[in-house]
């Protein structure tokens, strides 16, 4: 019997989505809804980073730049033009993808360590542009005044419930798309490059072109995450494009599992949940988070999903 992995995955995604969409109909919890909205943004961001890190072996320290660019492009379009929300979102993603293409064209030819630092340099440059270009971006105060006209297809996104549904749908669809890319022949090429780039090169693959595609796609999906983040805060802030935020995505990937597709999503969920819970009890969040990270890094030695696969390997596969 022929397997249809894509269909199966779409089915799982549909089930998951329906479960998530139904929860508020049974029990309203604003904190949970906020959590899912933020997780949607972060999950896209982290999973897109893993397309680079886990799949292609390209460690990018500057990925937050595209998350932030997506947020700013979207928020600025909404504030400055009369374009509708879907158009603004698509435009923001297009701008981010283009930026990723340009930055990637410069960076992808560099070896691993230097790639990491040059992406970081680009991110810091972008961040300092945001801060300096105060007349456009509001500088360190971010875009103020909120986002107007938050309607899409009859949904009022200023209502938390509608925003929750919208973000859940976008996140699941986005992750499904990323999964499709990752499972496709292109995705396999990326993993071959990660494992042995010389051999892959001998097979006729143009390495830098594959990497550039990966970088651009990853940037575009990070931008989509940024759009959701902008909807959540009703604006855009430079912190979204700052390198500690890139760090957050890296931690999500590492905590959840670099070798599992849903690893970054789980990692993001862990980080966000930890943040929400710990800040209720103590102001020493850093201390707690640091200890948790050490437990993962030194104890499990790998992300949660990777650890589960390691401890309970799948049968004969």
């Amino acid at each position: 019997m022929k397997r249809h992995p894509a269909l199966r995955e779409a089915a799982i995604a549909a089930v998951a989505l329906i479960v998530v969409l139904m929860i508020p109909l049974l029990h309203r919890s604003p904190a949970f809804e906020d959590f899912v909205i933020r997780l949607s943004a972060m999950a896209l961001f982290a999973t897109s980073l893993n397309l680079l890190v886990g799949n292609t072996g390209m460690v990018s320290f500057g990925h937050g730049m595209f998350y932030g660019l997506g947020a700013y492009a979207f928020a600025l379009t909404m504030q400055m033009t009369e374009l509708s929300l879907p158009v603004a979102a698509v435009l923001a993603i297009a701008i981010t993808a283009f930026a990723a293409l340009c930055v990637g064209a410069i960076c992808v030819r560099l070896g691993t360590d230097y790639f990491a630092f040059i992406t970081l340099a680009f991110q810091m440059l972008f961040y300092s542009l945001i801060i300096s270009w105060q007349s456009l971006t509001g500088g360190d105060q971010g875009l103020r005044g909120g986002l107007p006209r938050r309607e899409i297809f009859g949904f009022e996104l200023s209502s938390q419930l509608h925003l929750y549904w919208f973000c859940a749908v976008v996140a699941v669809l986005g992750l499904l798309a990323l999964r499709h890319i990752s499972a496709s022949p292109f995705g396999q090429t990326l993993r071959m490059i990660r494992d042995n780039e010389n051999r892959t090169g001998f097979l006729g693959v143009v390495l830098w072109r594959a990497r550039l595609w990966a970088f651009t796609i990853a940037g575009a999906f990070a931008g989509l995450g940024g759009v959701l983040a902008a909807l959540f805060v009703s604006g855009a802030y430079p912190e979204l494009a700052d390198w500690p935020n890139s760090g957050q995505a890296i931690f999500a990937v590492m905590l959840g599992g670099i070798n599992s597709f849903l690893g970054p999503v789980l990692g993001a969920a862990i980080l966000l949940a930890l943040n929400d819970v710990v800040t209720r009890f103590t102001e020493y969040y850093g201390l707690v988070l640091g200890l948790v990270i050490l437990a993962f890094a030194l104890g499990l030695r790998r992300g949660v999903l990777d650890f589960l696969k390691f401890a309970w390997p799948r049968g004969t596969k």
Partner: protein
Amino acid sequence: MSELITRRTMLTGGAASLLAAPWVARAQANTLRIGMQSILSGPIALLGTSSRNALLMEQDRINAAGGFLGRPIEFVFRDSKGQPQEAARLTRELVNSTGCELLIDAEASSGAFAVQEVVRDLGVACIHTNSETSSLTADPKIRVPTAFRVARQGVHDAVAGSMYLSGYADAKKLNKWATCSPDYAYGRDTTAQYLQFFKQFKPDLEITTEAWPKLGQPDFTEVITKLIQAKPQALFTLLYAGDLSAFVNQGNIYALFSQMAVATPNVDYPVLAAIKTLPPGIQSATRYLETFPDTPANREFGQAYLKRWNERPTNWAWQNTVAMQFYEAAIKKANSLDGKAVAAALTGMKINTPFGVDGTITMRDDHTIINYAIGWGQTTPKEPFIIDVKAADWGKIIELETEWKKQQKYI
């Protein structure tokens, strides 16, 4: 096949565990919870911790007097770590999940704008206590019906400061000035405001050079040598807290303070506590000073705070104190905690408080306070540390503020 089970099991298991307890909290029956969020960690943690200190003192005082509407009050403190998206989340959490009925937003400027948007959606009463950026209340597009500001304001500071400094500059014949301000929105906007009014009061003012170090920059060396070379007669700087402290220490070894007069609004008790060799004769505003206003009530506050917390108050401390005094009076008047009712009571309200120029502070129609004590004087190495304090002329402040608001097209 097992792959299917693993993934699906994890997804539904995950959903189930997410539904669990942490997000649902029950407020204790009668207690009135007031949400307070601020920056409690990182280099600027003092902003949040001194705010919290003052609020805890107010909590005790108010509860001893019967609380609000007969209910004891209890603060719920949260740390946004200076991240605006975290600030927005916390506001929603405090109101929606933790059951807070009033908000004190003690965030710095960028966080305050994020909180403002959430308050706009939620409609709960909120007082911003630490944001000094004028547009938070001056800009009608940003203003929110139930949000108020009890804090110093950049434009008030600029008018008061430039009035004093132009008098000082005329007296000492200091025409050539340099500026050195942190390179971020507040630094740039406030410096521009200061210079605008300064030039109005003293038309022969000449700015020889401007320096713009980054906020939190550890090493000011090249900035200091640039300033010295420009040979100004006086320096105006908006650096504050740790940056001001580092700048003074680094400036000292270049003998900067013997080559030019220095003026800043920002010498306060924390800076005084940190720098042991503060040069005398620096012109400074009094962000909080125990001897200005020179009243027993003010001194009592300073002493009580020092006794309880083993450190001296900051302007953040008095601002949060006054915010609670406003809430106390407004809630009594409105006899309700509803956002709109409290807002109606707060607008235009005048209260008695030790931190007002004449013992009172008024909440204006545009949701920001006036008549709080602003003074300028000069530093001295021993108590009370700032002497010859001259109170600012509020009539003039309001007149020029109105002009400025017209220029910015806010009115």
